[in-house]
């Protein structure tokens, strides 16, 4: 592969803002998406992630800033002139065309010869494992099949960047998990840059090479899944990606000697008998179990801390039955964790 082309980002945002009246949907966003990576934009609804995707596709134009695709500024370029394709949230398959015609649409409007078109459509239908559906109408397909056809319709054009707008949102959990793995495999196979919008943090963690966490039109943090999960830089990221305990001033002061807020993941906290001796580099905090939530594989304990506040602790049900765990309610406990798992957050 050509090394130099890899250095130019597939997508680059330079201080991009998009306003709708008073609403700042995208507010001064700068980011780079590397060529060939699986990049996720993660955030709650209204955080600006979909608007960012639409800006890349060309359905929206930025009010401020510049957007580059493979080094070329594309601010004013209409969608049909951009070498990107989109998989829409509602799939947006053309109801009056067969599957074959839907998938071949991009090639047809670009006047690709019929023989090549037929070949590429068939090839792509095989890639999404629906070669026998060519003659069907979209209305005759299931949700999962429509989703694959929408993917095929975009991939058949061999775009340099594929944009996916919550494509798995309408599928049930099992199908969604299957598609997550399949999408990732397809991405590796075709080697196209994938920009994936989702509000599902688990989905983003499963599939992405890198994740940008969005909040209120801004990017809070960009990084690899493990980095985002283990080193959240802001309270928002700590709270949105996985669950997190935020330890505020007073308790933090007692534990660390500094009143900076820090976060600790529920699965890092151990719950032991009060007064148990802890090792060096571990913290110890007394409290009482206020609530027990039995989740089958796991149990979530909400522990009221002496001196104020609550911490959530998650424990795998290794040796306990539901009866055992529920009996823990009201029990006095000591919480302990390795200090290295504390994450001091940026003060927003």
């Amino acid at each position, binding site marked *: 592969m050509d090394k130099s082309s890899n250095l130019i980002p597939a997508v680059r945002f330079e201080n991009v803002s998009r306003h709708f009246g008073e609403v700042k949907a995208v507010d001064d966003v700068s980011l780079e998406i590397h060529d060939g990576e699986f990049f996720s934009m993660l955030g709650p609804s209204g955080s600006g992630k979909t608007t960012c995707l639409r800006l890349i596709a060309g359905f929206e134009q930025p009010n401020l800033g510049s957007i580059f695709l493979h080094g070329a500024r594309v601010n004013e370029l209409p969608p049909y002139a951009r070498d990107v394709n989109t998989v829409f949230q509602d799939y947006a398959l*053309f*109801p009056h065309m067969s599957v074959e015609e839907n998938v071949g649409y991009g090639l047809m409007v670009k006047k690709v010869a019929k023989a090549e078109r037929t070949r590429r459509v068939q090839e792509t239908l095989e890639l999404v494992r629906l070669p026998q559906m060519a003659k069907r109408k979209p209305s005759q397909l299931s949700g999962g099949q429509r989703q694959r056809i929408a993917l095929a*319709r975009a991939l058949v054009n061999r775009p340099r960047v594929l944009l996916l707008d919550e494509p798995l949102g309408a599928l049930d959990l099992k199908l969604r998990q299957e598609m997550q793995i399949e999408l990732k495999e397809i991405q590796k196979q075709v080697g196209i840059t994938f920009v994936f919008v989702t509000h599902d943090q688990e989905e983003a963690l499963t599939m992405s090479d890198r994740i940008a966490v969005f909040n209120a039109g801004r990017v809070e943090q960009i990084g690899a899944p493990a980095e985002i999960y283990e080193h959240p830089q802001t309270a928002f990221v700590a709270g949105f990606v996985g669950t997190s305990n935020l330890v505020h001033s007073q308790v933090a002061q007692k534990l660390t000697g500094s009143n900076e807020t820090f976060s600790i993941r529920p699965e890092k906290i151990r719950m032991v008998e009060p007064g148990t001796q802890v090792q060096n580099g571990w913290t110890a905090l007394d409290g009482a179990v206020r609530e027990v939530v039995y989740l089958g594989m796991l149990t979530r304990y909400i522990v009221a801390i002496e001196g104020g506040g609550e911490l959530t602790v998650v424990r795998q049900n290794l040796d306990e039955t539901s009866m055992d765990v529920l009996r823990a309610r009201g029990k006095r406990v000591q919480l302990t964790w390795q200090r290295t798992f504390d994450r001091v957050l940026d003060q927003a």
Partner: protein
Amino acid sequence: MTTHFSTQTKTAAVSLLHRISTFFHHHPTMGLALLLAIPLLWLGLVYLGSLAALLLQSFFKLDDYTGQVVREFTLDTYKQLFTRSNMDIVLRTAAMSTAVTLACALLAFPISFYMARYASRASKIAFYIAVTLPLWSSYLVRVYSWKLILAKEGVIGWFFQAFGLQGVLDAILAVPVIGGPSLSVSMYGTFFAFVYVWLPYMIIPTYTALERVPRSMLEASADLGARPLDTFLRVILPLAFPGVVAGSIFTFSLTLGDYIIPGVLGNSAFFIGQVVLTQQGTAGNIPLAAAITVVPMIIMTIYLFIAGRLGAFEAL
């Protein structure tokens, strides 16, 4: 004791209601039948019944000497229908209906397109009112105003004169068959008035169909590399077409049966509706009037069959 008794009746009433609703819950078709009984009776007796009577009448004939209807099965009336002059009327009416429908479709599409795609919420409402406003006033008043507009001394004639285009107007009016002494007393007048009165019936279904094309569909087309014209021809037009066909059912059938406009405007060439009116009113020839009415029914049946094939009823 009284309290006890009233409680008992109340319970009985509640349990009766309860049993009725349970019955309908277990027999949903019975509930549906009860609900539809009156409208079905209306449709069945009054509407289909009179149609059947009409059809029956067309197989009778009028005795030329006595002027009485002979109630015997005969195809004589239909033979009368297939005379040259009657066939001319049928063809004229069908041609006018086709022309009016095409003109309505061509005029309605851009208006509907603008309403559905570009108009703001407020101007959409304004458009909607403007389109339906003519339907609020009397149809006769509007037809007569067209007679004045199109008259020799009317505003259109004045316009042609003022711009020195009298020659153009004369040439248009000199066209055989459809021409005449003035726009108002030529086929043009009939045509304009028809297009005007039926246009809202074309705009509304076309607009509805265009409005139902999701924005993401247009974005998908552009995203796949289609320029706006391609998107229009390959996505918008095919998706809105059933709406246009639905509208055309109105414009076509309304023109086919109308007898007022060709009476007020035009070169006094007869249309189907007028023949029906004179045959059953003036001439008292109910059988022939009935037989002529069967013609637009057959034309509409064929038309609806084709429209159904084109998916028009999915857009209604």
